[in-house]
């Protein structure tokens, strides 16, 4: 094995590697490690007190009221994940297929579908807040206009509709992303395969299930994993549309909001607890890392099988 001498090439390599390593260590590794450390201490405001071991973890998982808040937020995140899986990724796949088949106007639609992704989340949130407005919102006015006035709802004010309304806004905002990834995957399918299929069948359904879907499996892996991470880190839209408390009464509360409230406090609570907040952050991090890891390996294995 050739020894790396601190001259010439070796020096160059060291000089090039050290700054990015230092950067990663300082801005990624250090914050994660310190959040881990914070979680094991008792805090008074922002002042660190005694080492308390796993007590903070125990509190957020098993002590009321934290226990039911944690469960409620987690449950909502799960709902968000599955709903977006259907609305965002499912619709994304269908849209991608339609665009790929070059239906009339495909060029225009390709841009139209992707356009909302470029918009800032704040803009999307305010736009949909206006759409859902109980008195002046487009949704209610339209429903009343076409004689379906009984369907008009205070969308963001009811526990039954609030989370769903925000999910729809999120799906509208981001559907262009899975569409784009799937479309890129489809365009990579070799034309020989497609020609061969054309000899066998005319059925679109067979084409989708037997050819396209298996061959875009790598794209599916990417969008599924990203959606999972995104769904469990969800913050901006519920924050702007439902508020920090997950209004009404926790029905739009998600782990991100709950973490923020716990660690930094909000005006109505007046309490801030870094220990509990960090414990939550660590739990969220571990959960996402493990599940995302499992999803990725399982889906990778599936790619090969297909």
């Amino acid at each position, binding site marked *: 094995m050739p020894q790396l001498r601190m001259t010439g090439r070796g020096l160059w390599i060291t000089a090039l590697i050290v700054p990015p390593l230092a950067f990663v260590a300082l801005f990624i590794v250090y914050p994660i490690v310190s959040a881990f450390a914070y979680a094991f201490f008792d805090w008074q405001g922002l002042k660190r007190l005694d080492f308390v071991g796993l007590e903070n973890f125990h509190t957020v998982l098993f002590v009321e009221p934290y226990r039911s808040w944690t469960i409620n937020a987690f449950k909502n995140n799960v709902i968000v994940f599955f709903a977006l899986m259907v609305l965002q990724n499912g619709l994304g796949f269908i849209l991608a297929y339609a665009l790929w088949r070059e239906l009339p106007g495909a060029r225009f639609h390709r841009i139209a579908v992707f356009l909302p992704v470029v918009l800032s989340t704040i803009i999307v949130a305010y736009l949909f807040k206006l759409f859902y407005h109980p008195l002046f919102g487009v949704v209610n006015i339209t429903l009343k206009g076409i004689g379906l006035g009984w369907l008009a709802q205070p969308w963001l004010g009811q526990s039954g509709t609030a989370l769903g309304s925000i999910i729809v806004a999120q799906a509208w905002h981001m559907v262009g992303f899975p569409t784009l990834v799937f479309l890129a995957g489809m365009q990579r399918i070799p034309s020989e395969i497609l020609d061969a299929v054309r000899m066998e069948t005319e059925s679109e359904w067979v084409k989708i299930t037997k050819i396209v879907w298996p061959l875009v499996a790598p794209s599916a892996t990417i969008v599924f994993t990203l959606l999972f991470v995104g769904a469990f880190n969800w913050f901006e839209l519920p924050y702007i549309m439902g508020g920090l408390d997950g209004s009404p009464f926790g029905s739009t509360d998600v782990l991100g909001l709950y973490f923020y409230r716990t660690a930094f406090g909000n005006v109505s609570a007046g309490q*801030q607890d870094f220990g509990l907040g960090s414990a939550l952050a660590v739990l969220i991090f571990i959960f996402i890392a493990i599940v995302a890891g499992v999803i990725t390996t399982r889906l990778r294995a599936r790619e090969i099988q297909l």
Partner: protein
Amino acid sequence: MKTNLIRIGAALSAVLVAAPAFAQELTFWSWRQEDRAAYETFIDTFEAANPGITVKFETFEAANYNTILSTALAGGVGPDVMMVRAYGGMENVASAGYLEALTTESVPALADFAAPAIAAESMRSDGTTYAVPFASQTQLVIYNKALFDANGIAEPQTWDELKAAAQKLKDAGVIPFANGTATAWQNETVTFGLGSSLMGKAFYDELMAGTADFTDARFTGALGEVAAVAAEYFPDGFIGLDYPSAQQLFSSGMAGMFIGGSYELATFKTQNPDIELGVFAAPGKTAEDAKLVGLYFDGGYAANAAGANKEASVKFLNYLASQEFGQAFANTLNNISTIPGVTFDNPLLAEVNDLNKSSIPYLMLAHFRYGEPSGSVLIQGEMQKLFAGETAPEAIGEALTTGLAAWYEPFKK
């Protein structure tokens, strides 16, 4: 000639170098971005009277102010003088030892402040005061005078008159109350702005004495009445109506009344300079019942215990506690100053100040924000459930009492 120039130059630069040694620069942090111009003027007055001390006013976003402030103080880069919140928000910062304790020796004017104002800026555990309280806010009913006059409505003296007034507005095609409850904290405002007189002072006193809790019929009864009024006289779909929209409904003249804080008065005037406003305390059952407003204190001015210029900071705090400042504060910022003896140019503020004489503290903020879950978070969520028809007043009383028992000693069984 040339040597003279050099001499003058040398003298000038010596002064410039030495000047910072005499001048003390204080940094002053606030969350009141919108009051910057007014504070600059107050500071000019102070600087003119105290040569050698300069004050630099810096503002931060209101919602995250406490986080920013505590982070800075913990990191040793905090300001010399700062606005702090009241009650639990103040304790959060003070309990970590960042604030300078104030006494009637260091700030003599504190002796004349009203006791509830001082209490809002003191630790509950030992009664140490950490800030000079600056403003009180009042939860009451604000109404559109023109709409009341046009429909022949007078300020209601009983709960039934209040409902009759709302009915008159509704019949005239005006939304009686503009309020919406999609924004969580508005639920608390509506509950206590409308219900304080129904709950009554006796209930408050017994609650504080530990002889009553939230399952008390006076409290749950008030919640039921508030919910009934909301169902009948709030805008269609009010549970999905957010705070800014509710403000717009009122300031645009589409609604006759708004249950809110005295801080709304300035906002409504800005949104619609032509609007003529009136205020009243929501009445109790009968005309004999005391009409109570919900009163609380907004925050105070505190000094950094680890600040480099503590002497100058305390001097500045003394100015902020003076009647001269209180008067300027009330006149320019249209806020109710807590400083005793201040008079109000603005007749509405004078009226609010009068209403404050018959008040109970804005309950959850003043007494139940010291632990998790806070009374505010509980009442906000529970009232949203009540408005949506998913719970009953008695169940709310139960939920509040058992929820708060997690940390509130008198409720522990």
